[in-house]
């Protein structure tokens, strides 16, 4: 779903120390919906709109990335594994998975979440909405 463009504005959504106790918080800010994610020292914010069908992508689960283990020497694959160091945002409507840090789909790099600029200012998480 495309949200109506508005003039850029900066909005503080709360104290970093409070927000980062969760991995993810999804906020409705004057009608714009944004998911804010915390992974290690990194912060990301994504529009809560799946590029597939407009679903509420940030309101689903976050999971470890699934990998196919491959032995480079033989080409053999012992099967699928989980990469616990990376996190994927899963759209609850149809299961599209996006890397939490890059917003890129797990398979199709052309399919991406739309970023929201985010910064920490005096201990607050500040989003730039447009």
């Amino acid at each position, binding site marked *: *779903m495309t949200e109506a463009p508005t003039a850029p*504005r*900066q*909005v*503080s*959504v709360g104290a970093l120390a409070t927000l980062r106790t969760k991995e993810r*918080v*999804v*906020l*409705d*800010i*004057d009608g714009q*919906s944004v998911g804010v994610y915390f992974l290690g020292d990194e912060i990301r914010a994504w529009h*809560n*709109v799946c590029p597939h*069908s*407009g*679903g*509420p992508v940030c*309101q*689903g*689960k976050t*999971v470890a990335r699934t990998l196919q283990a491959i032995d480079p020497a033989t080409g053999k694959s012992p099967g699928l594994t989980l990469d616990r160091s990376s996190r994927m945002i*899963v759209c*609850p*409507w*149809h*299961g599209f*998975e996006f890397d939490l840090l890059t917003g890129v789909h797990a398979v199709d790099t052309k399919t991406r979440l739309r970023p929201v600029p985010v910064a920490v*200012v*005096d201990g607050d998480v*500040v989003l730039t909405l447009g």
Partner: protein
Amino acid sequence: MRPTQLDKARIRELEEIGTRSDTRDVLARATMQARRDYDDYFVVDIDAHVSEDHFWGEVIELIDNEYLRDLGQSQLRSFAGNNALLNIVPGLSHQSVGGRITHQGRREPDVPQGEHPFVVAARRSMDAMGLDYQIVFPSAMLLLGMHPQDEVEVALARAFNRWTVERILPMDERLKAFVYLPFNTPEACETLVAQYADAKDVIGFTVCSTRNNAIHADCYARLYAMIEESGKPLAFHSGYHWGDPSFAQLNRFATMHALSFTHYNQIHVSNWLINAMPERFPKLKMLWVESGLAWIPFLMQRLDHEVLMRPSEAPGMKRLPSEYMAEMWYTSQPMERTNMELLEATMKVMKAETQLLYSSDWPHWDWDAPSVITSLPFLSEQAKRNILGLNAARLFNLDIKPKKPRADAVLATRPGRS
């Protein structure tokens, strides 16, 4: 550097969508899409599903064979639970992708006292997606065609039809259904057609495609004649079956699911055409459900190619297979749409403007919102209106007077939740 001024904003936190979320919250974005794009359209969802395992005790209770009813109730209380008498394989049910997609199999919260949970969930989904009517099919029963005991398919078909027609449909005029035909037993199908041909809320008859019956066999001739006489469509609803030897080589649900949902309907359409069934039952309206669209141009071209070279094997046909196929009806979901040029060509060759019917498949994992149709750049507005509801109104003789609430009213029922 601190911004010179931070805007004051109304901020509220949104909940995670999970297995206990209200349908209206799960589908709130679809409601917004309805408000923006199709609030004044007449919309019919040809294929939504009951999670009948949630109400399996109610169905088992209606089995008319005393032995099977007793067996079913015994299994219900013990190991089989909600899979009593069924032939599904729970360990191979991967629809939720390891719990990533939570609406498959979810249970509706906050059901008002005295209302049936399925009807409440279905009504909320209709309201949220902007549907005037929704036609419901079973879920776990889609595999019954592969059940080794034909008598169980008959008993469960009769019970499920009674449950649907007598208990569920009268609770909401926007819900309609096809009667399930236990196709492994043609005589039982004939009895059901006779019983339900004039039932008000029964809009057609359905065969679950996942089975190995040759649908052109003469044992079905009387059945087809009866359905033709009723004037109601015959729908073949596809499905998957990982136990089919054809799919034993596939090690992921995604590939098995992708191929098997098209496989069974391709086989049935091929048999239907090569045996000249459209010429033998010319007024029988055939509807092919839940195989998506991409298989249609493939099969049209493939069969045309073969029949032109081997007409002696298709002497009953008076036209090309593709011409017969363009006169059949098809439901849209799961609509392949990663290549708009291919989708546009597909819709053109299958005459989508008159033959395609929108279907959601809700609440299954690969469902489609009505926006899959409204968002297509190459369709005219009239084509969108036809596919979303007017084609269905014509096929099923539905009154096109609006039945749904406006999207704004639906969103107002869940303020601040999603």
